[in-house]
């Protein structure tokens, strides 16, 4: 067995230098709740682990231009317990809350949930629906990207060698906005999403939906932003007819697989149901907020 190095740099620059300069596979270690399982199963054998939890900008939650920026290595439980953030983005928190048990959320991070690149990641659809932007740092400096551009397929991202996602920026929200994430699992907890749906919408003063984003999880090779589903809501009062069109558009966008967690037929049908339920909750939240 080859030796595995472990480094815990204190700065981003040092982390990037380690990750981009490594011989063999180098893995960023944040919460480790996926990485350690894969290491244990022997499916990955990194030569270098770079623990990024000691880097302050990756582990902080700060207000920024009326929105929030949180570090990619912030444990999920810290986000859940951050009252102001949870109040501002309840739909994102819906997703974050579903990432494993309390124990797993004590370690797991949203950055890891995204970069692990599972189509079923629970935080990703609501982040995409929210219009979140990731900060990325690599050997060639910093860049930003919409969340939906990071994952390209199961286990695959658009990150270049040595690049890591450092933060998530959730923009300032207009009034009368609400978001929600619903997923389907056979158990109430401790499951991987069979289907997930995140909806983020904004109403005008008259209660008409002016902006909406709908994103589905676990129904394709990566989380799917579904403009047709959003279009079903925009310009409506999110009434029963609009919700029905939303559900149909969501189901129509699915291109799922059959696997141990669900069948194609089931996923397609339930995607519409989850999208509708998420939209209903987002609507309730939008109406509650001024």
């Amino acid at each position: 067995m080859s030796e595995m190095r472990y480094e815990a740099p204190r700065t981003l620059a040092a982390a990037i230098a380690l990750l981009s300069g490594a011989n063999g596979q180098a893995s960023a270690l944040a919460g480790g709740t996926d990485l350690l399982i894969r290491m244990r199963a022997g499916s990955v054998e990194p030569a270098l682990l770079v623990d990024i939890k000691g880097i302050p900008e990756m582990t902080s939650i700060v207000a920024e231009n009326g929105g929030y920026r949180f570090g990619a290595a912030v444990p999920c439980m810290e986000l859940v317990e951050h009252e102001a953030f949870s109040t501002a983005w309840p739909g994102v928190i819906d997703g974050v809350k579903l990432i494993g048990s309390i124990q797993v959320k004590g370690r797991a991070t949203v950055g890891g949930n995204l970069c692990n690149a599972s189509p079923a990641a629970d935080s990703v659809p609501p982040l995409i629906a929210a219009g979140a932007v990731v900060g990325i740092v690599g050997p060639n400096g910093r860049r930003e990207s919409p969340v939906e551009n990071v994952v390209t397929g199961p286990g695959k991202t658009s990150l270049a060698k040595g690049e890591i996602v450092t933060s998530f920026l959730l923009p300032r929200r207009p009034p009368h906005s609400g978001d929600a994430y619903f997923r389907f699992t056979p158990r109430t907890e401790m499951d991987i999403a069979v289907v997930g749906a995140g909806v983020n919408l904004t109403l005008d003063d008259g209660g008409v939906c002016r902006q909406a984003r709908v994103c589905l999880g676990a129904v394709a090779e990566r989380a799917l932003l579904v403009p047709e589903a959003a279009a079903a809501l925009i310009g409506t009062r999110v009434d029963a007819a609009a919700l029905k069109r939303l559900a149909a558009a969501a189901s129509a966008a699915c291109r799922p697989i059959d696997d141990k967690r669900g069948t194609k037929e089931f996923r397609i049908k339930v995607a519409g149901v989850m999208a509708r339920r998420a939209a209903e909750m987002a609507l309730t939240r939008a109406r509650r907020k001024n």
Partner: protein
Amino acid sequence: MSATLKPEEKKLKVVGTRPIRPDGVPKVTGLARYGADYSLPGMLWGKILRSPHPHARIRSIDTSKAQALPGVKAVMTSADLPEHKFEYVGPERVAVNFWHMTRNIMAREKVLYEGHAVAAVAAISRSIADEALRLIEVDYEVLPHVIDVEEAMRPDAPLLFEDMITRGIEPAPDKPSNVSKRIEFKIGDPEAAFAAADEIVETSFKTAPVHQGYLEPQACLARFDPDGQAEVWASSQGHFVIRALTARLLGMDIGNLRVYPAEIGGGFGGKNVPYVEPVALALSRKSGHPVKIVMTREEVFKACGPAPGSSMTVKIGVRKDGKIVVAEGVFKFQAGAVPGSPVMNACMCAFAPYDIPNVRSVGYDVVCNRPKTAAYRAPGTPVSAYAVESVVDMAAARIGMDPLQFRLKNIARPGTPTVWGPKHTHEGFTETIQALMKHPGYSAPLRKNQGRGVASGYWFNNGGESSAAVHVNEDGTVLVATGSADLSGTRASLAMMAAETLGIDYDKVRPIVADTASIGYGHLAAGSRTTFATGIAVVEACKKVIGNLRARAAMIWEVNAEDVIWEDGCARPAGGNKGRFEPLSLKAIAAKRSVTGGPIVAEVSVNAGGVAPGFATEFCDVEVDPETGQVKVLRFVAAQDVGRAIHPSYVEGQIQGGAAQGIGWALNEEYIYDTAGRLTNAGFLDYRVPVASDLPRIETVLVEVPNPNHPFGVKGVGEANIVPSLAAVSNAVSNAIGRRMTELPMSPPKVLHAIDSGRAG
């Protein structure tokens, strides 16, 4: 909450109370030692290499590179274990064939399932052991495999054993097959009775294999000395059985092997047989060092026996007045890689709850490329009860009777014949049904998308061999030693029965689980037998001690022993004319131990008969999400005849645990294989045992109809509770959606499909 129905007032001081268990504190402080918690100086780590193929011939195994790795002290294969004669040993219901067993411990000619052990190493660290496994080269000739029971029964199915001729068919078939055995039980004339029945209901069912899901993976520590003497520390349901099987598998004398019982982290039948113990001991024999093996969860799922999956057809005929006149069941069970599913139990218990004059029960034991099945809580019986209780429900609906009333009308009573011959001799079935009829929840209204289901279930329970020793210490405290593993509170119940019998306080009795060299033979803690059979041994040993104490009191008083009685924990004169003496307490007599004859000790071994069966009736309310097929269990009420609850909290706990496992079995638990014959959900993420937020409170009703053959009326309580659970949930879901569910688990896609096909129809 919990309710107890007591048919008689009891005059007991300890039995029926709820004291703190004696082994409790170490279990809440982390100090209790389970199988993986033992270590010895110089200990090595053992690891097992497992087959990646579901079916393959082993052409060769080259261990030389692993052997040469620094830090590796031994590598073993099946060549290190003796061959065994091909013969079935023991009563048919639990027969063992060591030719098969040794092949399951370590593959010989072929690997028969993914995860089958093929070699093992012992090394100075876990990392080195892991690396050594990668260096073992196995040359496999991959063979076609078969997973499903119906497919395995087809004439063109790949054969696991090319020469296996089905047992139980006359004349014997001339062609080999994967059907290891056919069994049939029959009473009356089913054909004629079906012809005469007013209504006939017939349906076929399938169930997936499920795992016991004990939280503690198999683990042991073994030490083999150069003189042939050996010791094993293991968590099991019976250290005497582990000793016997391990010694046999290694070809050593039982007298040379001492097995120490570790605390056991759940078994439910799955730890009745050894998996790691023979391997660790063989590695120790080969290396000269103690060896510890701890399975991973993946190994537990892939290599330790689950309960069988099945394919079944049940048919019953009823009269218009609600009397069941005939029943027939065909039960095809997956045995896994070698013969030995519990299909015989399934056939015997299936119709046992009912008084049916004409019955035929046919069972098939079928090998396929899955891990060898193991016992799981009333082995085989929840599966056949699922089919039977579904059809019983359909029949009740067909003739328009309330399902509990229908069951009550047909219930077996003392004198009702069983399919296997003897008549029922115990009461208690009726009372569980009546208890639920009286339960306020049973008549509570249901809302849209909700359904209520009921089911009953029978389980034999068990008696058999147990030993107990009672030592009276000089300060009046008492040690109770038995050879029965304590799965969930039996030390408490045994101590309670000892305290009650001796007439002393519960906290003056200290119970232990003694190792195989320190007490007489005790059979498995399985079959709901421990509180019954080991309880009898404890009570008998206490009575022997009382006889001894009476004799000492007589000596002190200078009277005849028969003039001394034992009452309320004291020796007293048998009557006014026997002399006027102050009562002598156990403590007072114990203090005079050395001058009245020396140590006060009694050991009793029994082969307990007089077993009374377990019987449970349950109802369950569910709500089905019509858009997703998800089932939420809203309420679960279980009534079980427990004979007498020695420690009611632990009896309730058995019922709650059995019901919870039944709910998991019914809704989401299953072994899922891919087309390559590999298990795809060998972990707790995708093998979905219920979590706390999945379950409701589980209400228990302890029906106490005492067993006259036990000093305190005990019937076993561990298993009957799971027998009806699968069917209760299935009947509830079927009623909620208005479609009969015929396959377990009722996972959301299946329920949604049933709902949608109902809509379409």
